[in-house]
């Protein structure tokens, strides 16, 4: 768990000591003094060491260009205009949730005569779990980064003079409130109690720290339009990016989608002679396929990956939306 460490000196003997992120006490290995770490307003501040150079960031970015539904000639036509590292501040919190959620769920079953029976099943679920939370502590602009994915690495403030650093602009209290709220909602969903009659949850903050994380920004042009990718300065992986889509993929998708959707609807109408339900199923299937096709065509001109505020819907997100709509309809029908 304790992945991050930073070097300091013992105030008693001057010996080098290593502070594990989030710990408030440590022992000097030379003089055995007990040492206490007083953070800035109670918050431990850490910076990850940048382990990626310009070439590696460029390589990761170009590799990302060639993946997925992006323009096929992107690697040939795309021109890199800027590659630079920055430090972004993140709040990082570790919380423990302890408590109980009591309630019940309704189970339905159909007997041999087709009658639906409802059974109330009482539930009591104990929660005693740790949760990790992170969020960016500044306005990320168009970078598409809102939380930390990597929590392991060497820490050092050595690069601070050379790499531009974004100042933290969000408050510790707000971050803590969001971390607690996040832990509480994750605990609730893990309990899986659909109808709650009593909830006593306690969120304990185990650690709160400010982490400065190195990010490489790669900006490039493609047919006179600007795009970007960001690369993790510790792991070297692409975190977010915008890239041009491929018109051919869009055309193929709209052609295939409308054909398959139309066929499904037509098949349903033809089969209605056998059973009326088949027509409804066919029409519904056709409609769903057409909707997914439309979403892909509508947003396929730009491929977006990462945590952007305004992000076009992906196919998987569209499917989730449809599933949610289906559940709502199902509930209404009941």
């Amino acid at each position, binding site marked *: 768990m304790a992945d991050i460490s930073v070097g300091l000196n013992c105030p008693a003997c001057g010996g080098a000591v290593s*502070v594990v992120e989030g710990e408030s006490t440590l*022992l000097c290995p030379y003089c055995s003094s007990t040492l206490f770490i007083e953070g800035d307003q109670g918050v431990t501040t850490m910076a990850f060491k940048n382990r990626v150079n310009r070439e590696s960031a460029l390589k990761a970015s170009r590799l990302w260009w060639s993946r997925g539904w992006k323009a096929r000639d992107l690697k040939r036509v795309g021109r890199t205009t800027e590659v630079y590292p920055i430090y972004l501040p993140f709040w990082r919190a570790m919380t423990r949730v302890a408590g109980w959620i009591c309630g019940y769920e309704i189970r339905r079953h159909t007997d041999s005569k087709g009658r639906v029976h409802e059974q109330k099943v009482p539930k009591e679920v104990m929660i005693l779990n740790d949760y990790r939370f992170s969020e960016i502590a500044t306005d990320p602009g168009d970078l598409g980064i809102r939380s930390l994915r990597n929590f392991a690495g060497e820490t050092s403030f050595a690069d601070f003079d050379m790499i531009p650093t974004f100042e933290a602009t969000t408050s510790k209290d707000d971050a803590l409130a969001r971390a607690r709220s996040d832990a509480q909602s994750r605990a609730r969903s893990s309990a899986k109690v659909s109808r709650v009659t009593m909830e006593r949850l306690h969120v304990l903050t185990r650690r709160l720290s400010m982490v400065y994380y190195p990010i490489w920004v790669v900006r490039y042009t493609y047919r006179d339009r600007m795009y970007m990718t960001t690369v993790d300065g510790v792991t070297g992986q692409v975190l977010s990016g915008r890239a041009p889509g491929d018109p051919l993929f869009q055309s193929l998708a709209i052609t295939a989608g409308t054909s398959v959707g139309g066929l499904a609807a037509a098949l349903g109408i033809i089969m209605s002679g056998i059973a009326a339900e088949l027509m409804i199923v066919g029409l519904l299937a056709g409609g769903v396929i057409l909707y997914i096709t439309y979403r892909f065509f509508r947003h396929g001109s730009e491929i977006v990956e990462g945590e952007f505020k305004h992000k076009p819907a992906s196919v998987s997100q569209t499917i989730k939306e449809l599933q949610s709509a289906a559940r709502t309809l199902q509930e209404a029908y009941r």
Partner: protein
Amino acid sequence: MRIVQVKCPSCSSPIYSKQRDQLFYCEKCNVLHTRNGGVEKLDFEIAEFNRSLSGEKVYVPFWRLYCSFIIRSKSVEGGHVFRLMSWMKDEDGSGTLFIYIPAADFDPSAFKNLAIGYTVSSPKYGSRLDFGGARRMPAVMSREEAVELADFVVVTMEAEKPGVLQRLDYSLTVNSSKVVYLPFIMGQSGLKSAL
């Protein structure tokens, strides 16, 4: 970030230790203090070991919280036994009890068992003035956290009785707190009470 040497708030002697601990004990003047949110001396007790037991002696820190509660209403599906009844003084549903919260780092299951076990059956012990060379388990939990968890212990006691708890409307007030070091013997199968 600033790093400071921990000194006793009473005699200013540096505190030397072999383990990281949230509670700092001065062997010279027998003072226990914490630094969560400022230096604060703590009221504490050290329980005497049962002399008939042998093995590696370990002291485990607990927060002992003296609490009062009032139960307004409750509902249990398939059961009715009510554990808090044993501490009730009046028919109005009020009572007092000592809640023991392990302050050392335990896995959830061990934490729950120790907390429930000592809360349900308060330990009886003679106290002593020092640790007598026995090892102390480090504390990782602050008093504020222990107070939060007192409610969890109460609900756990009720939820683990027969039946499925559906509702428990009550209030719990922590009147005072004390650190209690309880003796254990470290065996091959883990910790065993040495009271």
